[in-house]
């Protein structure tokens, strides 16, 4: 059976420059964490009302994307879509790198990041947060094994089962990630079982979008071919996944509108929440959903690589807006201690919380994202993750290949 041919990427000057840039950003993120540890979180924009800010938005983004980045590998080994197989390795590598980046942000933002070992050794079985730590570690291990089986010769027959385990695991992982918010009975904006499926759909869509951007960038940057039919198929899949996410988001908000205790927070998010309302409607619904869904499903746009790239980038921007509204917007709305009453205090009761991301937080975020990029690039340099040619291993037919220039949309 013909196999797709893979090779490590070259360490040309572009590669070295990017590695240096990302390395610098990662160092900045580490320094930023030290800075916050030294002076305390007073130097961040977060406070006692809005306790999770932009670092958590990006951490959630990277973590859910990690699960979704594995879509392509799952398509190949779980759903038998062999045309996806040449990209399955890269999909696994990216999944690991994204999760590592997201976790690094979460850990570096802790009030006591040096106590990471405490978190690993003290386990509260009731805490969904603890469970998440296990899901993340398990995910890294499972995907690593899955990648090994894909890359080692003669172990092909185990790839299917590893793929299935990885697939089920990532569903559990995103369910648990969504439940971090969904289990919060205190907060009217979250407290709903639909957070789990919403996060599953979101993870599939965002991971797909990130994968598309990365694969297009890698193929363009290294002059490798990228099968356009496959690319188009992935863009259509992205559109479908974005539609599913939008569906769950709509159901979530409509359900909340029927719940008297959630009406006020819904009104805040949907109508008069200022930045949050704008991010929700313009950022998430408009730019991040309708536009890329249209691009992904439009046959004309499907022929154009820049359009596919645009759809993926817009989906990422929209996903970040959505997460910002969920995480920060959900906290900005005050807790409901005395339903039906007007309240005020010196501790933010009854007031919309204010939050402005600070420089240390943004540098921390850049550091975590850079870790993802560094790991991906390092992996591709070290091992043969990226295909040199696209061959459908089931049919043996060479897929329509294009050059790097075409891949870049030039």
């Amino acid at each position, binding site marked *: 059976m013909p196999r797709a041919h893979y090779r490590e990427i070259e360490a040309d000057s572009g590669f070295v420059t990017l590695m240096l840039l990302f390395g610098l950003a990662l160092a900045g993120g580490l320094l930023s964490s030290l800075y916050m*540890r030294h*002076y*305390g*979180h*007073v130097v961040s924009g977060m*406070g*006692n*009302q809005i*306790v*999770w800010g932009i670092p958590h938005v990006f951490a959630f983004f990277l973590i859910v994307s990690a699960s979704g980045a594995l879509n392509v590998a799952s398509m190949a080994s779980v759903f038998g879509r062999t045309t996806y197989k040449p990209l399955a390795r890269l999909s696994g590598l990216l999944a690991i790198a994204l999760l590592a980046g997201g976790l690094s942000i*979460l850990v570096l933002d*802790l*009030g*006591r*990041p040096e*106590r*990471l070992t*405490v*978190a690993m050794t*003290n*386990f*509260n079985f*009731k*805490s*969904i*947060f*603890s469970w998440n*730590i296990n899901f993340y570690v398990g995910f890294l291990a499972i995907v690593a094994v899955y990648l090994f089986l894909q890359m080692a010769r003669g172990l092909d027959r185990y790839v299917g089962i590893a793929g299935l385990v990885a697939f089920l695991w990532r569903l559990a992982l995103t369910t648990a990630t969504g439940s*971090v918010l969904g*289990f*919060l*009975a*205190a*907060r009217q904006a979250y407290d709903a079982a639909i957070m789990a499926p919403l996060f599953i759909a979101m993870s599939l869509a965002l991971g797909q979008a990130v994968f598309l951007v990365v694969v297009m960038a890698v193929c363009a940057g290294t002059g490798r071919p990228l099968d356009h039919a496959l690319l188009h198929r992935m863009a259509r899949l992205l559109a479908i996944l974005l539609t599913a996410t939008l569906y769950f988001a709509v159901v979530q908000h409509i359900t909340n509108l029927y719940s008297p205790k959630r009406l006020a927070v819904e009104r805040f998010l949907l109508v008069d929440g200022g930045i949050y309302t704008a991010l929700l409607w313009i950022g998430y619904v408009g730019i991040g959903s309708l536009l890329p869904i249209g691009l992904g499903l439009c046959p004309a746009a499907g022929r154009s690589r820049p359009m596919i790239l645009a759809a993926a980038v817009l989906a990422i921007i929209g996903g970040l807006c959505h997460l910002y509204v969920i995480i920060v917007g959900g*906290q900005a709305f005050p*807790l*409901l*201690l*005395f339903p*039906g*009453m*007007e*309240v*005020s*205090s*010196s*501790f*933010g*009761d*009854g007031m919309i919380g204010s939050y402005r991301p600070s420089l240390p937080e943004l540098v921390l975020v850049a550091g975590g994202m850079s870790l993802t990029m560094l790991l991906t690039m390092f992996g591709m340099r070290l091992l043969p993750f990226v295909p040199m040619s696209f061959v459908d291993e089931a049919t043996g037919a060479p897929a329509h290949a294009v050059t790097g220039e075409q891949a870049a949309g030039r």
Partner: protein
Amino acid sequence: MTSETGSRDERASGASRRSFLKSAAGVGVTMLAPGVVLYAAAPPAVAQRAGRPADSKIRWGLLVDLNKCPPGCDLCVTACADENGLHRPGAHESQWIRKVNVHDPKTDVRREVPVMCQHCAMPACVDVCPTGASFKRADGIVLVDRHICIGCRYCMMACPYQARSFVHEPQENQRPEVPRGVGTAEACSLCVHRIDAGRMPACVEACAARAGGAMVFGDLNDPSSAIAKAIGTHRATTIRADLGLDPAVHYLSL
């Protein structure tokens, strides 16, 4: 292990139920309504055998009579800050107890409600804490073990009362009985260090000594305690009782 965080259930608990009653009866006595008496703060310390573990038969709680809590009074808040080495309110400062102004737009009734950690029987902060740093002592007091708190703030996301604060800056000149750590979560400890020494929480004591004696402290599990009787007689309520967390802090005329 510090006196604040304690080594869980082995920690010395407060005075025995009986000694508390004795002390309460001996000092502040408050008329709630004709024929109903609340035993308020008891400034002199009750003899307390040191080293006794927290008693699971006891559940310490508070009752706040809002009729006796005058507008503008913040003695409980300042007493708490002084006792626990907190700073005055600021954007990033901890507030273990705060007064929430509550206005009912339908009846135009206004109240000022002291809100602190409600020491729930089923505390959301304890459930969500990944390391178990948030814990409930055998006698119902909910605390943070600052030695294993990693500062993730998930407990702050989970608490419906916004009772938890995050220590945003390194602390200096701390009270030895109440160590606080930058980068960790904290909240009202019900003045566990005072309870363990047979004394009342600082807010209760200050309110009884210098204000209307609106707060009662005692054992909710003891049907003969003043607090349990008053809660039963006057059908005291808790904040967000609908959440089912079973808070230990009760309010009259909420």
